[in-house]
C-alpha cells in the first residue's frame, strides 16, 4: 500500500505542529515548508520513521529571491525519495538575506556533503556543522557568490553588442 500524501501531512503535523506548513501538491510532488532551525530534525524523522521511510536524498539546491519579504530571501530546496513506497517530497526552507544559515544534513546523508559545498559556493549559504565547507566548483580565492541574482551573467557595460534589438535589456540579460 503506497504511502498517501495525506498520511505524510498528518504525521508531520502531529509530530512537528507549526514547524511544518504550507503543504501543497505541485504536479506529482508533495511540497511543504519547514522552519529553518528544524531541518535536520524533520529530515531525520522522515528518514528514520517506520512509516515515512524517506531513505534517499535525491538532491538539494539553493534559491535566491532578492525581492521577497524579509526573512525569505534565500531558500533551500530538498528532494527526498521513499523507495519502498515510491513517494517523493520536496522540502523548502527560507532564510533572511543578512544571515543565510542552516544546519548541515551531512550527518544524515553523506551525499549532502558536496551538494552543500556547491550551494555554499554559489549562494553563500552557510551550513552549520558541515565538515568541510569550502568552495568546490569555483576558485577558492573568489569573493562573490555567483548564483545570486544580483550578479549578472554578462558585463552590462559592453558596447560591442546591442541586445535591445532582440528583446533583451540589461535587466533580463
Amino acid at each position, binding site marked *: 500500500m503506497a504511502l498517501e500524501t495525506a498520511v505524510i501531512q498528518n504525521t508531520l503535523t502531529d509530530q512537528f505542529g507549526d514547524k511544518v506548513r504550507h503543504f501543497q501538491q*505541485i*504536479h506529482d*510532488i508533495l*511540497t511543504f515548508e519547514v522552519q529553518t532551525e528544524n531541518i535536520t530534525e524533520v529530515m531525520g524523522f522522515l528518514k528514520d520513521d517506520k512509516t515515512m521511510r524517506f*531513505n*534517499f*536524498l*535525491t*538532491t538539494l*539546491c539553493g*534559491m535566491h529571491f532578492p525581492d521577497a519579504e524579509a526573512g525569505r530571501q534565500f531558500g533551500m*530546496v530538498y*528532494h527526498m525519495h521513499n*523507495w519502498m513506497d*515510491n513517494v*517523493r517530497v*520536496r522540502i523548502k526552507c527560507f532564510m533572511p538575506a543578512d544571515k543565510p544559515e542552516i544546519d548541515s544534513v551531512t550527518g544524515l*546523508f*553523506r*551525499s549532502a*556533503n*558536496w*551538494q552543500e559545498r*556547491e550551494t555554499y559556493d*554559489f549562494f553563500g549559504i552557510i551550513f552549520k556543522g558541515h*565538515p*568541510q*565547507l*569550502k*568552495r*568546490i*566548483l*569555483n576558485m577558492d580565492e573568489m569573493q562573490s557568490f*555567483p*548564483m545570486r541574482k544580483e550578479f549578472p*551573467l*554578462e558585463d552590462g557595460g559592453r558596447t560591442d553588442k546591442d541586445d535591445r534589438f*532582440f*528583446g533583451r535589456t540589461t535587466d*533580463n*540579460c
Partner: protein
Amino acid sequence: MSDLLLPPELRYAGIIEQRKNEDGSELSILNLGPTHPATHGIFQNILLMDGERIIDGEGTVGYIHRAFEKIAENRPFYQITPLTDRMNYCSSPINNMGWWMTLEKALGIEVPKRAQYLRVIVMELARIADHIICNSVLGVDTGALTGFLYVFQYREKIYEIYEEICGARLTTNMGRIGGFERDWSPLAFEKLNTLLEEFPPIWREFENLLTRNRIFMDRTINVGPISAEKAINYGFTGPNLRAAGVDYDIRVMQPYSSYEDFEFNIPVGKSGDTYDRFCVRNAEVWESLSIIKQALAKLPEGPYHADVPDYYLPPKDEVYNNMEALIYHFKIVMGEISVPVTEVYHPVEGGNGELGFYLVTDGSRTAYRLHFRRPCFIYYQAFNDMVQGQMLSDAIATLSSLNVIAGELDA
C-alpha cells in the same frame, strides 16, 4: 575539523611528519590528475600513499565548470538544450529528452505515442553508447586495448543513426518540446536494423574477452567495493548502485515516455565492486537492445510531435516560405512565449543514474532557477572512501568503472 579546510598538501604534511617509518621511508603525496589519461576528464585526486597503498585522498573538481545553472537562468528554454548536451556527452540524447520531458510536464503537454517510442529508442541507443565507452575503457585501464578498439566502431554506428535523425553526432541537441523535429527517415530505421543485427555478436565477443578473463578478474574483483547501505547514503543511482544489489531504476519506479509498455529486467550485482559494475553494464546493454527491438516492433503510426504551436518550433520549410511560421519561430526562439508559474522535478534514468531537472519558473521568458541533479557529481564523493586501503592501480580501475564524466561532474 578545521584542518579539512586546508589544501590537502598542507593537511598531509603533518601526517607525513608523524608517520615516518624507522627505516627512513615516509608517506608520499601523489597527484593523480587533473589531466591524467586515467582520470577520464579533468579532475584531480590528491592521494596520500604508503608505498603503493592509498591511505587517504581528496578529489578536487571544478576544472571545467561552465556555469550551466547560471546560464540557464538567462536563456529561453530552447537555448538550454545545448547545455544539457554537454553534461554527460557520452549519452547526450538522454539529457535532451529529460529536459524536454521536464518542460512538457511543466506545460502539461501530452506527447503522442509514436514520439514517445522514438524517444525510448534514442535513449536506449544513448545508453548503449555510454556503456560501450565505459566498459571498453575499463578494459583499457586494466591493460586490454583490443576490446576498446573492437566495440568502439559500434559507438560510431550509433552516432551515424543520430546523424540521420537530427544531423549531429556527439552533442545532438535532439528533439523539440512535444516530440521530434521531423519523422525519422527510412535510412535511420535501416541503420538501426543493421546495428541490431551486427552489434549483438560483437558485444557477446567483447563479453567473452573480458568477463572470464583471469587477469581482468584479478584486477577488478573486490576492487573498490561499496555496500548497498553506503551506496544509498552516498546518493548512488544507476548501474553503480545496482551493482551493489539494489534494483532501483527510474524507468521502472517512475516510468516516463511509455517505458511501462516494455518488458525488461533490471540487472543487479552483489558486492558492488568493479567487476559487478562491469557486469551490470554489460547486462544492461542486452536489456537496452531488447527494449529497442520491442519498441520497433510495436512502433505506432501517427504524429511524431504534439500539436502545440505555442511551443513547438515550426518546420524549417515553412519558416522559409510562410510569414506566420517565421513569426512563430522567432517568438519561440527568443522566448516570447513563456512557461506558466510552476515548479517541476523530473528524473530520467541517464547513463550514470538518476538525472534530474528541477525547474522553477516565474512566468518570464527564462527559467527562474534550474538545478541539474547530476549523478556523477553526487556519487563521485564516495570515490575516496572506496579506494582507501587499496592499491594505486585499483584506484584507476575503480574510477574507470564508476563512469565519471567530467562534463557532468562540473556542469
